[in-house]
């Protein structure tokens, strides 16, 4: 931590004569004016909600958000969560959802970026088309795919029937076994373009000479990728994977619009479950306790995220 702060801004000489923190703050008081608007907005809409959620997680609340009537129950809300079967089911779903979505979206995006790196006729058009799913609304995406998966008129099932793969229209999202993979396909559809853009951007920073040198030395395409490009992009890749993982862990719209968590919780992930507890069943206290648990997991992820980001910065400055 200390090294990070010491590293942060000042050049090396400044560390020798170091004014006290208060002096530094006073000396740079004008600088804070620039960040003040951002910080005020952040405080109102972040710090307060977080405090509030933690506070509420220790209370039992009557429905309707009449919060004057809340009772202090200690850690009972947490106990309720950890002892419920639904919790473990939902956690397993969340893990599968997050891992599968992140991994496949990243690999597809990476491969697409590599394939698009070389110039060919129609590259710009193809790239634009591949990015569109990421731009359109997740609500629209959910409806498009819900229609594709429709149990009576869905095109996917119809194609499978016509090709003779199945006897009758499969029920993709009303089936406990297929619902989660079906939704993951939709999620990847929306997210691989993000990985693709990030890796495309990263590929532009790989020095051409390095690749050419490797080629002269007789490295094959795969060797050049594995020993030059891939390590060179490790920083971008880490950040991309983390951002994808966080986004997937936090996704809400696709499962909520497409299935609402059903059938029988098979597609509930943490976020949709919390939403349902709070706004469906009005169990604010339990929902808040869930949020606090979620918060702690995210803080752990956030730690790696910050480390990956400052690692990149360090590498860049240190070079």
């Amino acid at each position, binding site marked *: 931590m200390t090294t990070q702060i010491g590293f*942060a*801004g000042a050049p090396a000489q400044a560390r020798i004569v170091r004014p006290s923190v208060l002096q*530094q703050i006073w000396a*740079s008081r004008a600088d*804070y004016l620039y*960040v003040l*608007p*951002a*910080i005020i*907005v*952040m405080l109102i809409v*972040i710090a*307060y*909600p977080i405090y*509030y*959620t933690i506070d509420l997680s220790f209370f039992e609340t009557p429905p309707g958000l009449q919060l004057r009537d809340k009772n202090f129950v200690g850690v009972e809300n947490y106990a309720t969560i950890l002892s419920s079967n639904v919790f473990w089911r939902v956690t397993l779903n969340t893990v599968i959802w997050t891992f599968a979505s992140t991994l496949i979206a990243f690999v597809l995006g990476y*491969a697409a970026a590599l*394939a698009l790196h*070389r110039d060919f006729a129609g590259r710009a058009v193809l790239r634009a*088309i*591949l*990015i569109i*799913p990421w*731009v*359109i*609304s*997740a*609500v629209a995406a959910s*409806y*498009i795919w819900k*229609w*594709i998966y429709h149990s009576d008129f869905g*095109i996917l099932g*119809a194609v499978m029937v*016509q090709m003779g793969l199945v006897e009758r229209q499969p029920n993709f999202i009303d089936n406990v076994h297929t619902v989660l993979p079906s939704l993951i396909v939709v999620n990847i*559809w929306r997210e*691989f*373009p993000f990985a693709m853009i*990030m890796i*495309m*951007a990263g590929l532009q*920073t790989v020095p051409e000479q390095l690749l050419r040198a490797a080629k002269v030395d007789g490295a*094959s*395409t795969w060797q050049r990728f594995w020993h030059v490009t891939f390590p060179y992009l490790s920083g*971008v890749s880490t950040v991309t994977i983390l951002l994808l993982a*966080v986004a997937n*862990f*936090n996704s*809400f*719209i696709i499962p909520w619009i497409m299935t609402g968590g059903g059938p029988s919780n098979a597609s509930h992930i943490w976020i949709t479950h919390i*939403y349902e507890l*709070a*706004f469906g069943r009005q169990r604010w206290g339990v929902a808040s306790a869930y949020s606090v648990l*979620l918060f702690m997991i995210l803080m752990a992820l*956030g730690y790696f*995220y*910050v480390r990956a*980001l*400052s690692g990149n*910065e360090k590498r860049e400055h240190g070079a």
Partner: protein
Amino acid sequence: MTSMTEMAAPRGRTASAAPRPRKKIDGWRWGGRIFLLFMLAYTALPMIWMLLTSIKSGFAATQFPPQWWPDEPTLASYQKLLDPQNSVGQDFLRFFWNSLFVSVCTTIMAVVVAVPAAYAFSRFSFPGRKFLFFAVLLRNMFPAVIFLVPLFILMRVLGLVNTHGSLILTYLTFGLPLAIWLLKGFYDNIPVQLEQAARIDGATRFQAFLLIVMPLSAPGIIATAIYSFIGAWNEYIYAATFLTRNDQLTLPVGIQRFFSENTTDFPGLMAASFMMSVPVVVLFLVLQKYFVRALTEGAVKH
């Protein structure tokens, strides 16, 4: 893919001694093309199916086997959605306008607040700079659901429930971190010497910022604006929670409410999904250059 590499290799050997590695590349290139074709199908087919469904009649959309190309293409769904005389059209246009208003306001405010903040994070070294920057970034890690209940209560206290103000304020919270992050990348790449030159010529620090740095960071500001706009345009959860009056709804929530009542109007639903996507896709296609560049400068360089 393997078979292609094998096929390509022997020919290379007979042609000349040297180009063996080049022939190997061909295998990868063909593999890449086939993969891109697959990705194109994965990406585009659902969207094409949306368009084809939207120009069918309700009856044609529910045939088996499906009509690949509609027998009688019709724009009836679009006419219905865009007709101000019709009650469906009235609602849809209202939602569209609400979405536009909220997204534009959010975008303007995000840029106004993020520009000075990003500049400060890029240039100044006040104590806590690093901490604040990461605190700002960390906001993006937390899902909307955590903030829903407390923000709802906060909006009640501020008297903003059922107003677009509640949405604009909330959208700022997830728009800002991203905006600051992206803009900082741009400022990092503008040489400090330019400002120093202006300062020597007698400009104040603020003047140097306004007259030198701002114009140079225009691409960054455009990119930031696009991201904020798209984020606000597509947002669903807060809008679904904070707004209850029908005439206030934004498009994603409006469409969801409408079609949870009219569950079988698939062409209408697809037409609405398409119309909802048009503004952001057009914006993206027109300003694509900035959109991708922002990530290159912002995300990848640091």
